[in-house]
Each structure stands twice: as structure tokens, then as C-alpha cells.
């Protein structure tokens, strides 16, 4: 009997000790919906976040160690690849789609322009294996991590397990991505009625127009409905990308692409899944004058949108209030010097 009591006491001590294990709470910005990611399956912890961040910045993930996630998803440009219409991978290979900006992934349901990825955890497998992106595979990546001089101890610290498994690798990458939250743009400050912050009359008018014409797909506060729509782009016959239908094989999904968030849209140029527009003016002109009518066009865009030249300027002024400087320069998202400087790389 005594033995059992001791045993139970021991288990209790262990549970208490594990509970206190640097759990980091995910902060939901005021008035935002509940995140979609199930944090109970992968509770945030600072060592795991740091590990994920190191992996995000490490070209060891690519076949020839030249390309990291950040090569295509650069923090200062809202985690996208500016200037390239289509993404560039190893050996200068060019992909078939434009890298999207990464923000607020804890609220994401399906990932990629066509929703090919069904869970944030599974996202890294796609670029790692894609021949035009990182051109490697998860087994090679884990093999290299096991032999590296820094990762075995980082994995041990994070997971209390020195075996570097696919599950732990993917969960750590998710942890870092989940922390990438943009919620402090001028727009947010205005919504929170912070002292001394207000829209200019141009911005306010742009916001009014936005709520009339754009809100139903680019829904606040995330500026996306996290669903797939045809917004009237013509088919680029050099790519013949029909979007979501590739995954669902449902003709209703032909030409439907994921509605991107417009947070930090100032920096996510070029725009659309194939990067066809260089400026926000061009995007707005698309919505006012060049909508392509087809069977799957969203009914919301069926009726033409009329905007005067001034209204277009106001709309752009509003979109620029979605720029979140704190996010773009947040040190918590940047290259983790402390890890890569302290140990020699293999």
C-alpha cells in the first residue's frame, strides 16, 4: 500500500513539473474570432517556437542548402517574395505560383492558393519536396538535422526527446508560424479607438467603399473568409491554372482561388496567385473594369463596380492602413542569430 502511495505521489509531482514547462499562451487580439488551430494538440512553448524559427531560416531544408523558407517568405515584406511574379527555388528554378504573404495562420483552415494543404502542420512538406522549390524530402532533412551540431540539443530542449521525428519537426515549424500574427496596423488602432489615432478623410472614405464592395470576401478583421472564390481573373494560358478544382474535381470550383488576406498588402506585391498585377491601382482597376464573366464567377462581382478616380485613390489609402510596422520589424520573427552564431554550422 505504501508503495502505491509513493508511486501516485511521484506521478503527481511529474504532472506538476511538466505543467510548469514554459507553456506560452497564444494571445487572441481583442474582438477577433477564435483561432482554428487546435493548440491543445501542440501547446506553444518558447523552446519549440525558437526551434521552428531556426528551421524556418535554415537552408539545410533544401537539396543544395541554398534556399530556406525565408527565401520566398521574407519578414520585411510580410513574409512573401516581392518582385517575383512566380516563386524562385533551388538552381534558379521557377515555380508556377506567386508566394503568398504569411499572416495569422492560426486562423487558416486550408492552405495554398487551391487549398491543397489541409493543416498548417503539413505545409512544410510541400515546399521541401517540390522540385522547383527546395527539391529535397523530409527524410533527407531529418537525416541532416540529426547530424548537425545544433539541432539535436534544440529538439531535446523543445520536446524532451532526442529522437528527431517528422512529427516533432512539423509541430515545431507550426509553432513558429502560429506566432506570426499581424494585429497592430493603423486600421486595428482605429478599430480599438486608441487615443490620438483616426482615419484621414480619404482613408475613411476608402474604408466605406471597401465595406461596400470588398468586405464580403476580404472580411474583417482577418481580411479573408478563408474560402475559395473566382474573382474574375482571365486564365493565363501559359499556366492554365484552374485553382481549387485540381483538389476537389468539382466543376463549381473551376477558377476559384483562396481569398488572400489583405493585411500588409502594401508589401505583398506582385498580386494574385500568378503575380499578374504589380500595383494596388491595377488590382482596383481589375475589379472595376476587367472582370471576366464565366460560370463560376462570384455573383458578388457580377454587377459592375463603378469607382471614380478619387474613390480609387481613397481605396488605396485605406488598404495602406493595413500595414503593420510592428509586425514587419518584430524581432521575435527575425533570423535567430543567437542560435546560428553560437555554434559552428556543419
Amino acid at each position, binding site marked *: 500500500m505504501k508503495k502505491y502511495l509513493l508511486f501516485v505521489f511521484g506521478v503527481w509531482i511529474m504532472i506538476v513539473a511538466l505543467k510548469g514547462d514554459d507553456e506560452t499562451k497564444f494571445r487572441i487580439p481583442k474582438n477577433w474570432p477564435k483561432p482554428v488551430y487546435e493548440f491543445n494538440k501542440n501547446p506553444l512553448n518558447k523552446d519549440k517556437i525558437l526551434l521552428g524559427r531556426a528551421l524556418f531560416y535554415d537552408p539545410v531544408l533544401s537539396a543544395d542548402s541554398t534556399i530556406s523558407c525565408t527565401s520566398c517568405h521574407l519578414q520585411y515584406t510580410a513574409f512573401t517574395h516581392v518582385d517575383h511574379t512566380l516563386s524562385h527555388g533551388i538552381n534558379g528554378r521557377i515555380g508556377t505560383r506567386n508566394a503568398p504573404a504569411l499572416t495569422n495562420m492560426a486562423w487558416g483552415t486550408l492552405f495554398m492558393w487551391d487549398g491543397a494543404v489541409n493543416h498548417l502542420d503539413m505545409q512544410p512538406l510541400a515546399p521541401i519536396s517540390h522540385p522547383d522549390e527546395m527539391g529535397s524530402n523530409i*527524410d533527407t532533412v531529418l537525416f541532416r538535422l540529426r547530424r548537425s551540431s545544433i539541432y539535436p540539443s534544440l529538439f531535446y530542449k523543445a520536446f524532451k526527446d532526442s529522437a528527431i521525428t*517528422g512529427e516533432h519537426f512539423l509541430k515545431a515549424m507550426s509553432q513558429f508560424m502560429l506566432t506570426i500574427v499581424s494585429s497592430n496596423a493603423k486600421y486595428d488602432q482605429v478599430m480599438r479607438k486608441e487615443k490620438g489615432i483616426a482615419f484621414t478623410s480619404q482613408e475613411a472614405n476608402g474604408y466605406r467603399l471597401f465595406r461596400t464592395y470588398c468586405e464580403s470576401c476580404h472580411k474583417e478583421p482577418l481580411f479573408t473568409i478563408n474560402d475559395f472564390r473566382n474573382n474574375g481573373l482571365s486564365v493565363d494560358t501559359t499556366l492554365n491554372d484552374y485553382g481549387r478544382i485540381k483538389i476537389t*474535381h468539382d466543376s463549381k470550383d473551376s477558377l476559384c482561388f483562396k481569398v488572400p488576406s489583405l493585411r500588409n498588402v502594401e508589401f505583398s506585391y506582385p498580386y494574385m496567385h500568378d503575380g499578374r498585377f504589380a500595383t494596388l491601382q491595377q488590382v482596383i482597376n481589375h475589379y472595376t473594369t476587367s472582370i471576366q464573366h464565366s460560370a463560376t464567377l462570384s455573383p458578388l462581382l457580377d454587377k459592375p463596380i463603378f469607382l471614380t478616380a478619387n474613390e480609387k485613390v481613397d481605396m488605396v489609402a485605406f488598404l495602406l492602413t493595413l500595414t503593420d510596422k510592428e509586425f514587419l520589424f518584430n524581432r521575435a520573427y527575425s533570423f535567430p542569430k543567437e542560435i546560428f552564431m553560437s555554434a559552428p554550422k556543419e
Partner: protein
Amino acid sequence: MYRYITVVILSMICTHNSSAQNVVPVIFRNVWGNTPLQLDSSLHTNQDTNISTINNLKYYVSGITLLHNSDVVFSEPSSVHLIDARMPSSCTVMLNLPKDVFYNRISFNLGIDSITNVSGAMGGDLDPTKGMYWTWQSGYINYKLEGKSNACKTRNNEFHFHLGGYSYPFASIQKIVLNLERTDSIVIIADVSTFVKQIDLANENSVMIPSEQAMKLSRLAASIFSIQK
């Protein structure tokens, strides 16, 4: 304090009970006709097929359940097993049954259910490093068969069947129910030759995406399981 005492008593009961548990092995025997399946070696050719080798055979078995007639009498908790013909140890699953369960049928899924498919990264047999997870589109491969046949006019005469897909209209998981002859050990035969013989390898030798074809082949793959007499 009372709580601890309850826990103590409970744990005593549990440990007591476990000694009365009944361990029943479920053995998946992958065969080619009447002989155990030999990977990488020439399989004897007959009129029906030009097969020369099988190089890889892996499949997921999940949701193992025992039934007495149509009543469920036991469901294995978190039941997922990757059967890999290259790893004999993976082909035996031990079921820990409580004492006094009576059953005469077994049921299991060939493949991974849709909930598990959308639940993010998992470990053990579900770890995506097991070569059973697609990368360009999320989802587990339920059944993987690779080999060579001179019927295939492909590179190195190879054929590849990666069968999977968890969502409508291409949900390819298959439920299999078999009547048992004996219950102290359960031996399930999977005769790969009956699968291969029913495929026209000259025209059908590469299926790697969820599709109508993958559904058809998944049903075929499920049909090769039987109970050893």
C-alpha cells in the same frame, strides 16, 4: 487525499485486471498465391500475368474491431498500424482483450479515416516520414504497391500504385469484415497476386492521386484479404 486513495485503489484494480488479459495476435500474411511474398525476387510468372518483382508493399490497417455476429465486442484503442512487407515485425498486431469476450468476426479499415487525415502532424506509424504521406496535397497513402513487370512499357518497367484520398468524391478507405474460423490467433491472408492479376498492367501502371481509378483499385485491394483456413 480521498482522491489519491481512490486512484490507488483504481490502479490496484487495473494492475490486477491486466494479468487476466488475453493477448490475441492478428497476423497479416502477405502472400503471392500459395507462397509467402518475397520482395525484390522474381515471382513465378504464369499465363495471367507478366509480373517479375514486387519491391514495396505497405498499407495501413486501422480501426480493428471484433464482433460477435453483428455486435461490437471489442474495439482496439487508437488503432492504426502500418503493415510493411519489408518489416516482418510490423505484420503482427497484438490485441489486448479483456477476459471473456466472445467473437466470431473481425473488422478493420484498409486505410486512414478522414478525421485523422485532417488532424495535423502525428507520430508513430502516422509520422509523415513513413513514406505514406503525400506532399503536394495533404493526405495519407492508404495502400502502396510498387514493382516491375515486363508488361509495363514504362521507365525500368516499373509500376506504382499509391492509393489514397480521404474526401468526397474520392474517399478510398475500405472497410473489411471477415468471419473467423478460430479465435486464439487470427491469421489474415493478403494475396497480392489476385490484386495484380486483375489489373491490365500494360495500360494501368501508375496511380498516384486521389481519383476514380484509385477508388476502383482500393476496392480491389480490399478484396484480397481473407482468413486463413
